[in-house]
């Protein structure tokens, strides 16, 4: 029977909704056991599932929900206080229900899983309290919920259970009500025909229904006084045949038709509370308010249909763009006016369709309290979840895509992040860990943050692990910044967990999280403070299908730049070009409001053959700079011509071109030509704007000169067989000439008295050229670079100070020697960058304590 199928579907969808809210509510209950409204809600959810499953003849479901309901009833009456064991049992109940529902969904049967243990647990928990209380004997009189109808008593026959519950607790689902109406109509017809008593079995046969179902419907009618039930299971009209056929019953039926949610009169609370057709199912916020009207005003729509609509709207936007382009050449005002109208309507339609696909992120968040609780219990930890901005909306496809990564991150935060209560207490933190989920819109993107106040990530341990696993070498590790190291958790196969648990620690996951988020155009960043917690920041686009973009031209072709990355446009004309663009060792930079902006020529980056364009530009006397932001770096992209901004429909590139990181996709322009969409992040990486050195410099310079990030000030000097060496000027406190005669010795350590302190000296020549050190005793003075570190100072003895330069440094090759970070070309000459920290450490000047954490480059 198709009707039955529909009813079961409705039942499944509704029950899943209840289950979702149950998860959240139960965890909430554990914390806040005194909230009667919460308890009632939980009770009603379980009760409704029980009722409907009884109606549909799922006895197993009835029996376990019944046991759970009994328990909840005791809770509701205050005879039991929720504790962890109880909540666990109830959560297990939710799992069991879910399992049965899944089985029903797949096979239409309840499945063979044995839930007797659970039922036992549930009833055992009930026995904990006053044994004399028969849980559901007469709950209809319950003070807490007066309108709640009587749930079936435990010993009643299944038929009766079904009858009472269906009667009491119909959900407002349209199809079910419709099915019931049909049955009622049939019954009415039968009564009219015969006008006399009809045996139940015969009724059922005529209606092509199960006996139970007929029984249920009639029970409803009986309640209305429309039919009488005889002892011998025969029904007859209450007064006479006429009254039933033409009077009350028809009215009842018609009234019901008008409003399906009132299909059965005297529907108590639960029906109003069942969000049967809520697009945004399971939102805790909306559940707070009664929403009889809400469910009347919403419909369920297949996501596939929405996807089709979205695609169609995408095509419409393209066509709109084409037409708008044609109108610029048109004189016909009527035509132009209708084109403008079309333009407006399309935009509105697009917004509307986009909105239908938007869902609050709370939809995926509200299962996290349960997840967190389960994991916390499993790890003997205590944690609570806080949420900010749960109503932040995201495209459905994106919601789907981030669901698993977010779950993974939440699990990680509890399993790895939050410490056990004892450890927390020892650190002076509250025993209960806090996990904050935060979502908000910013600059056309959605930011999601997962912040825990746990132990944080120890970079040293990551280093160690990475070296153990052969992912990096020791010198690599020494050179890496903390940020780089933290980002190693996103590398495949990486896990810092000491032991593999069943929750996490297998080292698959973070890399998958990263790939999944990058797949939808998002970025993940991790920040951590040892002992204070970890925060993971995810930025994702609002939607994927249609994006606003700036269209530019380079040579023959046009390109689209997503506006998300766009900061501003700068046009240089005439004299400004010569004055504005300066070269730092072949790297063009532009002073944008006093700050240096490194320039990237699009034609060079894309290796476009027409070198002419740049020349043309300069001849034309204008340069267009598109100022873009990639992660936290700004750079200027020099393009030939800026055309316009336009909404573009993103089309993916085929497999053959996927690897081109410079492009995010393609789009079809108004004139039918194709334009490539630039991937600003990929382009920036290609151009080297995002090198780790550049980042580090951003960090270092941020306090003083926030935007001269591309440059680093270095002290150049010579030491050890005329090698050119450099160290960051920021590490240098003074340059001194010290008379050789002043050098004194303490053990094998050379010292000088310097400004009232003892300063150890390090002969760089000796450190660098292993074994080949020859001091030059003929010299009267030594050149000493005084490096200050937290109050203590160390003198590096060098041969000659060369210069102080401001340069963009990119390490060309990495030396194996510990004391050298790498080699770079500075002032056109090969220069080695010293690892000052290492050198000082190697010189074993332990008696002068210095801070090991001073950052080197």
């Amino acid at each position, binding site marked *: 029977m198709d009707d039955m199928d529909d009813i079961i579907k409705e039942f499944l969808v509704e029950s899943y909704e209840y289950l979702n809210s149950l998860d959240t509510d139960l965890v909430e209950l554990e914390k806040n056991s005194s909230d009667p409204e919460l308890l009632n809600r939980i009770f009603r959810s379980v009760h409704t599932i029980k009722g409907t499953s009884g109606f549909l003849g799922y006895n197993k479901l009835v029996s376990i929900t019944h046991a759970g309901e009994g328990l909840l009833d005791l809770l509701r009456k205050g005879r039991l206080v929720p504790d962890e064991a109880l909540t666990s049992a109830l959560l297990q109940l939710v799992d069991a229900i879910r399992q049965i529902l899944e089985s029903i969904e797949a096979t239409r049967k309840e499945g063979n899983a044995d839930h007797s243990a659970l039922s036992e647990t549930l009833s055992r928990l009930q026995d904990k309290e006053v044994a004399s209380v028969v849980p559901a004997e007469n709950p209809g009189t319950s003070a807490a919920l007066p309108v709640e109808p009587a749930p079936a008593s435990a010993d009643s026959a299944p038929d009766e259970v079904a009858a009472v519950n269906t009667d009491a607790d119909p959900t407002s689902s349209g199809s079910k009500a419709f099915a019931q109406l049909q049955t009622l109509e049939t019954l009415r017809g039968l009564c009219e025909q015969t006008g006399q008593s009809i045996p139940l079995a015969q009724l059922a046969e005529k209606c092509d229904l199960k006996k139970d179902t007929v029984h249920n419907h009639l029970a409803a009618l009986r309640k209305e006084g429309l039919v009488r039930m005889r002892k011998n299971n025969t029904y007859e009209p209450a007064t006479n045949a006429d009254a039933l056929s033409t009077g009350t019953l028809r009215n009842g039926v018609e009234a019901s038709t008008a409003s399906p949610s009132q299909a059965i009169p005297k529907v108590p609370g639960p029906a109003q509370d069942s969000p049967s057709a809520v697009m945004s199912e399971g939102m805790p916020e909306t559940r707070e308010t009664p929403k009889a009207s809400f469910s009347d005003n919403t419909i369920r729509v297949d996501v596939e249909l929405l996807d089709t609509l979205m695609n169609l709207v995408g095509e419409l936007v393209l066509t709109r763009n084409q037409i708008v382009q044609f109108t610029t050449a048109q004189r016909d005002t009527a035509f132009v006016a209708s084109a403008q109208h079309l333009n407006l309507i399309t935009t509105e339609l697009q917004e509307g369709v986009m909105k239908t696909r938007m869902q609050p992120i709370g939809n995926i968040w509200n299962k996290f309290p349960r997840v967190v609780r389960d994991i916390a219990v499993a790890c003997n930890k205590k944690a609570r979840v806080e949420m900010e901005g749960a109503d932040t909306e995201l495209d459905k496809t994106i919601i789907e895509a981030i669901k698993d990564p977010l779950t993974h991150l939440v699990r990680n935060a509890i399993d790895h992040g939050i410490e056990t209560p004892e450890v927390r207490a020892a650190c002076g933190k509250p025993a209960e860990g806090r996990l904050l989920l935060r979502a908000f819109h910013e600059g056309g993107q959605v930011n999601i943050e997962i912040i825990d106040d746990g132990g944080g990530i120890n970079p040293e341990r990551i280093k160690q692990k990475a070296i153990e696993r052969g992912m990096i070498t020791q010198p690599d590790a020494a050179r890496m910044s903390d940020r780089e190291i933290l980002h190693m958790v996103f590398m495949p196969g990486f896990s810092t967990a000491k032991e593999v648990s069943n929750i996490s620690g297998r080292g698959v996951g973070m890399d998958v999280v990263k790939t999944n988020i990058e797949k939808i155009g998002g970025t993940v960043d991790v920040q951590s403070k040892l002992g204070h917690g970890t925060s993971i920041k995810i930025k994702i686009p609002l939607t994927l299908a249609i994006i606003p973009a700036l269209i530019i031209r380079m040579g023959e072709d046009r390109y689209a730049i997503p506006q998300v990355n766009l900061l501003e446009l700068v046009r240089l004309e005439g004299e400004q070009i010569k004055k504005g663009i300066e070269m730092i060792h072949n790297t063009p930079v532009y002073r944008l409001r006093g700050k240096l902006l490194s320039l990237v020529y699009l034609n060079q980056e*894309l290796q476009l053959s027409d070198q002419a364009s740049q020349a043309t530009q300069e001849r034309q006397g204008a340069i267009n700079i598109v100022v873009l932001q990639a992660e936290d770096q700004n750079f200027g992209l020099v393009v030939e011509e800026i055309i316009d901004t336009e909404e573009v429909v993103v*089309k993916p*590139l*085929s*497999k*053959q071109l996927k690897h081109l990181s*410079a492009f995010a996709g393609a789009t079809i322009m108004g004139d039918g030509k*194709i334009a490539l969409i630039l991937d600003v992040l990929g382009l920036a990486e290609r151009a080297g704007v995002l090198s780790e050195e550049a980042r580090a410099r951003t960090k270092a310079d941020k306090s003083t000169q926030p935007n001269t990030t591309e440059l680093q000030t270095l002290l150049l000097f010579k030491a050890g067989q005329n090698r050119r060496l450099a160290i960051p000027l920021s590490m240098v406190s003074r340059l001194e000439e010290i008379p050789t005669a002043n050098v004194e010795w303490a053990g094998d350590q050379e010292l000088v008295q310097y400004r009232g302190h003892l300063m150890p000296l390090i002969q760089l020549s000796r450190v660098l050229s292993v074994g080949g050190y020859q001091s030059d005793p003929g010299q009267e003075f030594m050149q000493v670079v005084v490096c200050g570190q937290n109050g203590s100072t160390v003198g590096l003895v060098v041969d000659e100070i060369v210069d102080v330069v401001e340069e963009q440094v990119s390490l060309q090759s990495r030396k194996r020697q510990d004391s050298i970070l790498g080699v770079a070309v500075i002032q056109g000459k090969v220069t080695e960058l010293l690892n000052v920290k290492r050198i000082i450490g190697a010189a074993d000047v332990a008696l002068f304590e210095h801070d090991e954490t001073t950052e080197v480059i």
Partner: protein
Amino acid sequence: MEKQKQFCTFYLDNLFFGIDVLKVQEIIRYQDMTQVPLAPPVISGLINLRGQVVTAMDLRPRLGLGKRNADDLPMNVIIRTEDDTVSFLVDEIGDVVEPDEDTFELPPETIGSGLRKLINGVYKLDGQLLLVMDAERTMDLTAST
């Protein structure tokens, strides 16, 4: 090989190729293309096929054949596989042929390896040889480059 296959045929540098007709979505004339900078040289560009962005791959460089005359505009053979649609640029389109299975032979060992990897076999037709192209492998640039 199954019986009585039909092949959509085309010419490349005087060689005669065939692709299983079921894999060919359509054949269209030369289309304006959008260049893709940084792409491998075999990718000629992108064409707009009724609102769909399709990558065009020039089979001449793909098979290691010489360059086409600048005046000769190539034809597009649109190949559709399960997960991708690609346009093969060829010199000239031939008939749909239904060669006799008896005339099939595996590709001779001696032909250039670049070509041989993309050829499933040879049909000995009257007066000429039909090289059967493996469309999937030809589309997949990662495997053989």
